[in-house]
């Protein structure tokens, strides 16, 4: 696509300008990774709708901006500026990244138990590059698409979480990614690396927030490696400005009997694309992917999931729901690939969408590729409106029509929220949900 061409020069120029000041600059292996990613980007550019994976998500709006890599570190923000967004009732190890950089001022790491290491990727590259070298960019190597390539070339920071064998973290790790957009359109390339040792257990929340209006692009990659029996619960809350763009990938690799639970809530951004991929690489690995998206106006949200069942007796569950109003648009593409060796795979997928307006649109596509013969796979996708009989039931009790519709919408979405084990997160999402339903009084609705 011709529109991509000027961008190539733009990012190549940027890369030349900033490469020497990126974290880990001077480490040969990392310099090579970044340079290779930049080359890759020069070849493939940003995705176009001619690519199957991006058929329904046009990133032209992103391509037309000349996003500058953010290097300036913005200080001066204090916790109070963030209000409820930090989930005050959540007792967590908090690490905050401000405009793509770790912010000690807004972080509260707390005391970490034995065998648990959490720090910023930038400091890890400084203090223990030899630890990162065999781990970084091994699951997501920047080849997937132009965004992934740009992320690897430009990433400035992110969280590094390492759990040693049998380390169990009681409190969740709260990773806050805050964008305070100002001035020229900036891009923040964040990269997280989670390494969960055998038998370890942790809960990690990635929470994307923004203050202020201007356009920006957050480009995120999270790699997660789960060793045997590891147990990782991962939350991804995307609550960004309606002018922001958010593109992200969670790429997980799961060893024997490991368990990954991924919860996503995507309500913000003008365009949000979430790729959630897990490779079940050994027997008995399990993953549950849950997600809720709520869009309005002209928002566009795209969830692409891919579960690779590579070995026998893997279990995958996917429950995604969307509530769309205005002229918003959602895409769900759920790929389940059952490899030849993956006998006794048990995969289930469901995507349900509620359209609250005539002009909202959903493209949903389950994609099952099954090369083993003894498997149990099911999928279902629905797109519908509120049930008029239910609306009548509520109205017949005296409840005004808009309230009735709001309550039923809440009811539609709530089971995804209910799957979220962490109460403060559940409350946050519930409050967001209710705030989108102006006629509904939130207190006590779902108790």
């Amino acid at each position, binding site marked *: 696509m011709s529109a991509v061409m000027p961008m190539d020069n733009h990012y190549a120029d940027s890369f030349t300008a900033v490469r020497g000041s990126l974290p880990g600059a001077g480490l040969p292996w990392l310099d090579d990774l970044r340079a290779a990613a930049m080359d890759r980007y020069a070849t493939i550019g940003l995705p176009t709708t001619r690519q199957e994976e991006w058929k329904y998500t046009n990133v032209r709006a992103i391509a037309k901006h000349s996003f500058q890599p953010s290097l300036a570190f913005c200080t001066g923000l204090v916790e109070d500026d963030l209000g409820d967004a930090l989930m005050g009732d959540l007792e967590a190890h908090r690490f905050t990244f401000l405009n793509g950089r770790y912010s000690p001022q807004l972080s509260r790491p707390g005391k970490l138990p034995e065998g648990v290491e959490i720090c910023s990727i930038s400091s890890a590259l400084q203090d223990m590059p030899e630890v990162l070298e065999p781990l970084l960019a091994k699951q997501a190597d920047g080849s997937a698409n132009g965004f992934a390539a740009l992320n690897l070339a430009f990433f400035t920071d992110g969280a590094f979480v390492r759990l040693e064998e049998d380390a169990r973290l009681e409190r969740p790790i709260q990773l806050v990614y805050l964008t305070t957009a100002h001035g020229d359109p900036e891009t923040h390339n964040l990269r997280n690396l989670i390494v969960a040792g055998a038998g370890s257990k942790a809960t990690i929340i990635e929470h994307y927030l923004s203050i202020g209006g201007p356009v920006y692009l957050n480009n995120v990659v999270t790699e997660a490696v789960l060793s045997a029996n590891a147990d990782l619960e991962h939350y991804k809350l995307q609550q960004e400005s309606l002018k922001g763009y958010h593109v992200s990938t969670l790429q997980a690799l799961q060893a024997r009997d490991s368990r990954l639970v991924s919860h996503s809530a995507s309500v913000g951004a003008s365009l949000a694309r979430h790729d959630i991929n897990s490779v079940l690489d050994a027997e008995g690995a399990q993953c549950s992917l849950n997600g809720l998206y709520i869009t309005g106006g002209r928002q566009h949200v795209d969830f692409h999931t891919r579960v690779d069942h590579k070995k026998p007796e893997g279990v995958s569950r996917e429950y995604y729901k969307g509530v769309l109003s205005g002229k918003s648009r959602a895409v769900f593409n759920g790929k389940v690939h059952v490899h030849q060796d993956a006998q006794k795979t048990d995969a289930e997928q469901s995507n349900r969408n509620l359209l609250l307006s005539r002009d909202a649109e959903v493209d949903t596509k389950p994609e099952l590729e099954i090369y083993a013969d003894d498997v149990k796979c099911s999928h279902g996708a629905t797109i519908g409106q509120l*049930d*008029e*009989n*239910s609306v*009548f*039931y*509520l*109205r*017949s*009790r*005296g*409840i*005004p*029509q808009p*309230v*009735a519709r709001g*309550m*039923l919408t*809440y*009811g*539609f*979405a*709530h*089971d995804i929220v*209910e799957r979220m084990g962490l109460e403060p997160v559940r409350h946050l999402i519930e409050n967001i949900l209710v705030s989108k339903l102006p006629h509904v*009084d939130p*207190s*006590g*609705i*779902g*108790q």
Partner: protein
Amino acid sequence: MLTIKDLRVDVEGKEILKGIDLEVNAGEVHAIMGPNGSGKSTLAHVLAGRPGYEVVSGEVTLDGEDLLDKAPEERACDGVFLAFQYPVEVPGVNNTYFLKTALNAIRKSRGQEELDAMDFLQLAREKAKFVNMDEGLLKRSVNEGFSGGEKKRNEIFQMAVLEPRLAILDETDSGLDIDALRIVSEGVNALRREDRAIIVVTHYQRLLNYIVPDFVHVLSGGRIVKSGDRGLALELEEQGYGWIDKVASA
């Protein structure tokens, strides 16, 4: 209280009610019986304001005020209540919350003060006891996972809380075993009052052993073909609906 004059209603272009006349006074219990497809459920739903029914002609007034022009929620605020044959499940919405929202909407429309959560809960507990409903159902999502009997009991419980002037019970006996039928009926009987009218829509006479009506009307082919006292229901049970067709065409 309720006056229905020559009510004709089409559903999807087909005439279902072909001229209904009915007068229901405060304190009375009327049973409307009839075979499947006679239009009795349509009548119940038209009174509650269900969308999708086209009133071709006739009028319905509640205490002299036109009912047919009003939205379902306005009718509820005027004191109309329909107990559904198939109560709707509302996952995720707490039963207490749902009913508090309903009651406060009705109270607000009447210029009464809204109840806060504590006061409402106290009221709800009293009423649950009154209609013999397990208090545990208050905390559950509306009708979700309720047994058939629990759903019907929840309808009667809602009626007890909302205190309608005109309650319409649509096939409340369907799907109930004899114990559940007895409990639900006891709830309804406890709610009989001088200033409240009740219309019981049913296919079978057996419900009327428990909720004894003052008047019985037999609906057939979209018309009331016979009215009488409780004896009519018993006669109908003995003779079957075939008898009615004979009487009607005679």
